[in-house]
């Protein structure tokens, strides 16, 4: 410690100067502060944001999902529960009868999206799951999973694997 450090004051004044600088700058640049006024202002979610799941649909509104269970297999939290049923005569051979995601178990790793061979599940809603007051309400069924559109629709399947998104 040299003398300047030893007498406390010099460094304290320097420190005060730094904080004052921030104060004055922020006083006059309030808009550039990083804080968001949250409910009114919302951060734009990046295109890759892993949000709430979404089951994609074909143009006729039927689910793309074929209940192949790869997502349930890849899921490290084992939060996906699927029951298959015979498909409609005009559609694919198999379709899900039950497709539940337990959002309380989900860890948002997106391995299900990566596993899906049909582009049937995506996490591109840009939404977080809203709070609920019972465990049952956190089990999202097909209705909840098809409720929200993508933030960027159509979102080409996993283009970001090659860096284009």
């Amino acid at each position, binding site marked *: 410690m040299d003398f300047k450090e030893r007498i*406390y004051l010099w460094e304290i004044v*320097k420190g005060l100067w730094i904080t004052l600088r921030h104060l004055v700058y922020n006083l006059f640049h309030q808009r550039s502060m990083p804080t968001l006024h949250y409910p009114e202002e919302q951060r734009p979610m990046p295109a890759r944001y892993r949000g709430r799941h979404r089951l994609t649909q074909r143009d006729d509104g039927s689910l793309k999902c074929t209940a192949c269970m790869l997502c349930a297999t890849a899921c490290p939290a084992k939060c996906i529960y699927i029951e298959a049923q015979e498909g409609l005569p005009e559609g694919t051979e198999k379709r899900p009868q039950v497709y539940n995601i337990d959002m309380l178990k989900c860890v948002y790793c997106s391995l299900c999206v990566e596993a899906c061979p049909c582009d049937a599940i995506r996490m591109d809603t840009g939404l977080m799951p809203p709070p609920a007051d019972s465990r049952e309400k956190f089990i999202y069924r097909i209705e909840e999973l098809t409720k929200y559109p993508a933030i960027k629709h159509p979102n080409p399947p996993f283009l970001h694997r090659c860096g284009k998104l």
Partner: protein
Amino acid sequence: MIVSCLPEIGYLHRAFEKSSEKGSYTEVIPYTDRLNYCSAMMNNVGYCMAVEKFFDLTIPERGIYVRMIVSEMSRIMDHLVCIGTNAVDLGALTNFWYFFQAREELYDLIESLCGARLTTTYTRIGGVMADLPEGWAGRLEALLAKLYKVLEDVDGLLTKNRIFIDRTRGVGGISAEDAIGYGFTGPCLRACGVAHDLRKANPYMFYDRFQFDVPTGERGDVYDRYLVRMAEMRQSLRLLEQLLATLPGGPVNADNPLVVLPPKEKVYGSIEGLISQFELIIKGVQPPAGEVYVATEAANGELGFYIVSDGTGRPYRVRVRPPCFPLMSSMPHLVKGQMLADMVATLGSINIIAGELDR
């Protein structure tokens, strides 16, 4: 005055190692996020490097560059948290906010890279989840200058401030011999004057291609740890600058269909891709039977993954060598004979992350 101290660990024990045996090799990656959650990316990288060692995989240059970039970013983020919270414990709140703002901006970048801030799950066995998005490197480059400024601010507020020096100098010190004896690694060891850094001592990825110094301290006390971490952040920034300047093009994932999932367009469009997808998801990657140990220089020190494979798609055993554990075990030694308030400073300076400590 602290007469004796007994660290009680295990309150965040989540059976990481046992749970890892339950799923496929890929399913462990999200678990690794939860080890040192301040620098999840580095855990991802370390784990994937360990599994890749089974296969002798060659990751394309760009993939390794990307991994190095995220690792160095994570190192900075981790040190920002460590110093920021340490300062809060000493009553200086403002530094924390300056650092956390910088960290937030780094997180924003991480988020646009992999879609999550804390629980990244970014790397994959054989590469990474996704290449850098467009314009990402430029955003990072712009952020680097800002980070230098933040470091300067905190430097100005703390480094020469006598109150800070009084609180940290000679506090929680340990000699180099004792530190090695306890198994210290990382900044805490370097603060004792031992210039041991796995990136230099046992270069992995491309650390031997770039210039950076290994900052060391002298006395191994809280103040030296602070200085070493500050210097390391500057070195990481230096590394990031070099990495960004020489970032090559090309693919990021290894070209091995037995390990890496096929590109999505192949999965949707060809039976071959579809079959590979199914095989890799159902059975997982299946490393040959054997065992590997891969250690990386994580933010806190040597983060090692020891994996035993029995040739199936599930790890037979995963063992983590967490940097925190030896640090925590030295707590009684570090704080003995010191004052109660020093405990807070010391604990903060060795950067105990319970997720990693208890696993």
